[in-house]
């Protein structure tokens, strides 16, 4: 993992590609979550939700191994030195 300012073009490309996959997957989860809040008995929506939870976790694990923590407060492991402050902030990319 390297600091964002020293990424190669290939790393930048990979960052945007993986980030977009995460955004797409998490969008499905937000949308299903809101739907299930008012339709809590829809079994196929619950199954789809759980399937995307798994997909989201896998994608984020891969992303974080390359670009550092997506989460703070103990929701991501940290490499050394502490990497939370290194990965770019969303408005900078």
């Amino acid at each position, binding site marked *: 993992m390297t600091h964002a300012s020293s990424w190669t073009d290939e790393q930048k490309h990979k960052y945007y590609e993986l980030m977009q996959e995460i*955004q797409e997957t*998490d*969008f499905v989860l937000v949308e299903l979550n*809101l739907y299930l*809040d*008012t339709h809590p008995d829809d079994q196929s929506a619950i199954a789809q939700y759980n399937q995307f939870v798994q997909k989201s976790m896998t994608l984020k694990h891969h992303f974080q191994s390359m670009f550092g923590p997506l989460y703070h407060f103990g929701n991501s492991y940290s490499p050394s030195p502490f990497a939370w402050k290194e990965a770019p902030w969303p408005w900078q990319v």
Partner: protein
Amino acid sequence: MWIYEKKLQYPVRVSKCDPMMARYLIEQYGGADGELAAALRYLNQRYTLPEKVIAIVNDIGTEELAHLEMIATMIYKLTKDATPDQLIEAGLGAHYANHDKALFFHNAAGAPFTATYFQAKGDPIADLYEDVAAEEKARATYQWLINMTDDVDLIDSLTFLREREIVHSQRFREAAEMLKADQQTKKIF
């Protein structure tokens, strides 16, 4: 408790420096029907709403914080390379004099944000119908904003936000119907 995710909900790209558009977008940052008012309105209502609708109000309130961050990112990107002269020309001279390029919670006309933009009535139907109206007003604002720019990247992100208002409105309508159905059931006994 909230956990921050180091990502935007949807990508925000802009194709040019455009402080004039940033000045109008501020409406959705610190305006009456903007994302801050939406997030605070819903998150504040949660405590006294019936159990059945707390989750939807909590979750939409949380998503609004992600939308607030998208709007902030648009404004930041549209102004970060602007010179003071360009800001003055875009009508942001008064903003620059007070805030430099820092974001401030005010509307497109410069009126500072106020808690009086939204209500907490303690009546679930009144609160949920206010929420539906808030979503429809925000949807309309996004349409007016889309009409004011030819930046296709910006239009893409604004279109996403406009569509979210439609979904939120639908979910709030369902929540209101759920409560009304409950009230009618109870009257039978």
